């Protein structure tokens, strides 16, 4: 167990591929972290959760959103746009974690004020290092910086 002081994050992982969900979880466990992860499998569900709609009425507000772009029902970019449009939601940091390395996706994401854009690595060690770095940044006393821009 990591003796470093860390905060237990509430993370919302929006991802339709269960394999990738497990991977992130494993990667975090590998990093010795035990963050709380809520999963939304599609864009609609993600937004319902964020808006605490339906049976997500008493969901907790996540402190970090990991967002895949390739989602059924509603795509990641759409979700991001909605998050960005919401005064409260936009304050939650969003890290886009997707398999696409297409420049238009990258540009679009940053235009919608994503904090980070990561292409899912195919190599395990690479995955671990990315996630570790990510977790360090947000978990270790990183303030919830307000997003730039409106």
């Amino acid at each position, binding site marked *: 167990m990591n003796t470093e002081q860390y905060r237990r994050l509430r993370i919302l992982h929006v991802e339709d*591929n269960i*394999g*990738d969900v497990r*991977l992130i979880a*494993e990667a975090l466990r590998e990093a010795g972290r035990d963050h709380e992860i809520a999963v939304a499998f599609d864009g609609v569900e993600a937004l319902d959760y964020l808006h605490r709609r339906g049976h997500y009425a008493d969901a907790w507000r996540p402190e970090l959103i990991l967002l895949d772009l390739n989602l059924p029902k509603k795509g990641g970019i759409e979700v991001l746009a909605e998050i960005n449009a919401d005064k409260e939601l936009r304050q939650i940091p969003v890290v886009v974690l997707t*398999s*696409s390395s297409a420049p238009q996706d990258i540009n679009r994401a940053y235009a919608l004020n994503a904090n980070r854009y990561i292409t*899912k*690595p*195919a*190599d*395990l*060690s690479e*995955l671990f290092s990315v996630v570790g770095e990510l977790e360090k940044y947000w978990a270790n006393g990183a303030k919830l910086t307000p997003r730039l821009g409106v």
Partner: protein
Amino acid sequence: MFWLRDISITRKLTTIVVATSAAALLMAGAATIIYERVTFPRNLAQHLASLADVVGNNSAAAILFNDETAAAESLQALKATPNIMMAQVYRKDGGVLASYVRVGEPMATLSAAKTGISQETIAAEYVDIFRPIFVGAERVGGIGLRSDLTEVKVRLGAYAQTWLAVLFVSLLGALGVAAVLQRVVSLPILNLAGIARRISNEHDYSQRAVKETGDEIGALVDGFNEMLSQIEARDGALTQAQGELEKRIRDLQQEVAERQRAEKGLAEKAVELERSNAELQQFAYVASHDLQEPLRMVSIYTQLLAKRYGPKLDGAALEFIGYAVDGVKRMRLLIRDLLEYSRVGTRGQFLAMTDCNAVLALTLNNLEAVIEESRARITRGPLPVIMADDVQLGQLFQNLISNAIKYRDSKPPEIHVGCKQEESHWLFWVRDNGIGIDPQYAERIFIIFQRLHGKGEYPGSGIGLAICKKIVERHGGKIWVESELGKGSTFYFTLPATAGS
């Protein structure tokens, strides 16, 4: 006179002939009349002289016998000659023996009477004659006669009238004859004119004028016909040329239409190609992307498996996992290479003027690390500026040079990049001192995924040369290798020259 110019030649000729006849007749008539006017009085005088001689002769005795009565009687006989105005019988000394005078005329005495010499006086209104009268050789006296010129006038008048009548009739005759004979000249001309008019109206140059006469008109007809033959020939040639021209135009138009169709087809094909390209690109991207996803899963989970359960597994299991991971890695590379291969076509830029030297420099820059690591020595000749896709050209150089470095043997690689201008293209070459290639595989190596060596010996998916070939062929060139095992290789490729490069 101008009206004469423009009337028909028939009339012209007739008019000319008639006018000529009239002129001739007029001149003849005038000459005759003038001649008569001059000579007739003279004739009259002669006639008078004869008369005088006769009468004088008759009076000779009267003179000798001084018989006035008899002399007067002789003279009285002249009464019957109405033109005699006056007559006198003279004695030898010029004295008048007897006289006769026409009613109403004055008397006059001829001056010649005294001289006794024969005399003829032609005045405007009369003619005087004096003749001596002889008996034998002896002049006994004289006789004088004066005659008026009425006879002359009458005769001249008669002449004039006759002549006018003759003139009139002659002219009529001339008119008739001319009207008929002028045809000899005018008909051929009119025929010729008629034919000429017809030909010029109908544009039928096969017609010919008929040569009817052997004179200058006949010669004109010959000339005319020859001219027609020439015109006909030229017309024919012209028509033919025109026909050929039209045919050529039609052919050309057809060609143009075909080309336009072809162009349209090409434009359509280009659009189609563009669309197909875009589709393909999309497909390639999506396919590779979608293919890559499951691979990633496989790859990463086998890795996770190895990591998590590695200690619990035996060597064989780890080996198996290793093969699986390896397979996936290869798969990813293959997909990546395939994507790259397809992109040669789908991501090809329009060709632009490209400085090959700059592209090579950039490539060598990209390969700096590997060049340094292999201690490769690369030399180069001056390269031209040609129409090319600079990105792909860079890929081409990169593949060939990295191959040259990769397939080295013990010695450090010595690589030369050169080129030479040939008729319609530039010949480039990349020469190395590496391991060389067995000539029997010289063509195989350009086939996609064909490798001559195991992965363990030399890395690579075997797509590099296939990509090079595709790039070169996309530029319209050819690529081949000349090599011998152990003696290095020279990869040649041609790229089309641009005018002025």
